[in-house]
């Protein structure tokens, strides 16, 4: 599998937060989801990938090149959707397009018309007069209309209703049908990724805690629920984010196979959602313990 994006040992320091040794890849022909709680470093990482902010350490390679080597070419080939609208609010959609389209050599007017229609966007309306969801749709239409090979989106689904969110996921799956493109998108609404993502990169507190195939990630974890008596000190060590109440406990089992046999009949093992994995892992860190092994 070919890497379209390669981030190696990326570091970025702020006074109250830093990215530490961030490593990740985005593979050609697949959808990679980037998850983590608010403030985990998702947007900062994406800004470093897009060269909108300078990393203090580490390397970002896109299509095999760094921004220093060929930023112009790299940016021509990326469709970028930010969490906030960066269009001219007092101008109409059509006027905004007329200003931005000429920057792209591969701008495709037909494709733009197709998305305007598909997303039911009012061409002549001012950007300021659009709802949040509509702005996001316009952002998407602009990002996709120059046929990008890499689509990077920062929280694209946060302002969207469930109907359009599903349509967007379908659209992303359309985009990767030709095996030539890649999608990388961050979200804290993990259920969007539950279905279509091939790979998951999970960041928490500026560090990558997991980066692998989504199916493998879901298969190696399990949510365990059961009576408190079962929870010996040894077993507790296998669990993350344990919550104990008067009537039992629950926690995230990080290596399912290590408990094989011991769970029979006494505790309940449930298939986790990405949200479960995120929740218990973050809880574990806040409790002052380690991250996913």
């Amino acid at each position, binding site marked *: 599998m070919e890497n379209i994006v390669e981030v190696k040992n990326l570091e970025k320091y702020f006074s109250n937060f830093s990215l530490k040794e961030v490593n990740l890849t985005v593979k050609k*022909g*697949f*959808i990679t989801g980037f998850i983590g709680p608010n403030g985990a470093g998702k947007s900062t990482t994406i800004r470093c990938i897009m060269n909108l902010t300078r990393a203090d350490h580490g390397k970002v390679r896109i299509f095999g090149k760094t921004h220093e080597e060929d930023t112009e070419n790299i940016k021509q080939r990326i469709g970028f959707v930010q969490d906030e609208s960066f269009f001219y609010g007092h101008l109409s959609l059509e006027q905004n397009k007329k200003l931005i389209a000429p920057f792209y050599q591969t701008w495709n007017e037909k494709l733009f018309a197709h998305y305007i229609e598909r997303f039911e966007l009012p061409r002549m309306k001012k950007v300021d007069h659009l709802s949040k969801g509509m702005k996001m749709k316009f952002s998407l239409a602009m990002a996709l209309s120059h046929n990008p090979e890499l689509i990077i989106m920062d929280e694209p689904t946060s302002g969207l209703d469930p109907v359009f969110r599903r349509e967007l*996921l*379908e659209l992303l*799956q*359309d985009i*990767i*049908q030709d*095996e030539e493109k890649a999608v990388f998108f961050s979200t804290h609404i993990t259920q969007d990724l539950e*279905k*279509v*993502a*091939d*790979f998951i990169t999970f960041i928490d507190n500026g560090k990558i805690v997991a980066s692998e*195939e*989504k*199916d493998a990630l879901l*298969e190696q974890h399990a949510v365990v629920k059961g009576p408190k008596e079962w929870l010996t000190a040894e077993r507790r060590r296998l669990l993350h984010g344990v919550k104990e109440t008067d009537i039992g406990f629950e926690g995230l089992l990080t290596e399912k196979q290590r408990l094989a046999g011991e769970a029979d009949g006494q505790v309940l093992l449930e*298939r986790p959602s990405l949200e479960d994995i995120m929740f218990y892992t973050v809880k574990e860190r806040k409790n002052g313990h380690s991250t996913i092994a």
Partner: protein
Amino acid sequence: MNIIISNAVDQPIYVQIKNQMKEQILHGQLQEKESLPSIRKLAKDLQVSVITTKKAYEELEKEGFIETFPGKGSFVASQNSELLREKQLKLIEDQMAKMLEDSKAFNIPLNELIEMMTLLYEE
């Protein structure tokens, strides 16, 4: 081809896809040489990840149920009748093994089982 994914069962999605396709091949609903959707098309139709459908196809290929030709796509493998019979028998054997395991756990003797089976078979 029909595939229905359930999120309610504990079985991984790729196993669900694999088993349903296998069953349709063994029952002849999917005929040999029939062309199958690409892994990306199937992923899109089922709203699952490409890796999931890829894994299902890879396992079906390993077990000899389908064949993939680069550039052409995937097809139901031609099954010689002997081999197909063998796979059908294997399927039944697996189900029997499960049944016998439960029967032993419930203390049901073999002759009673055979009696039950005969009755059901003749129905």
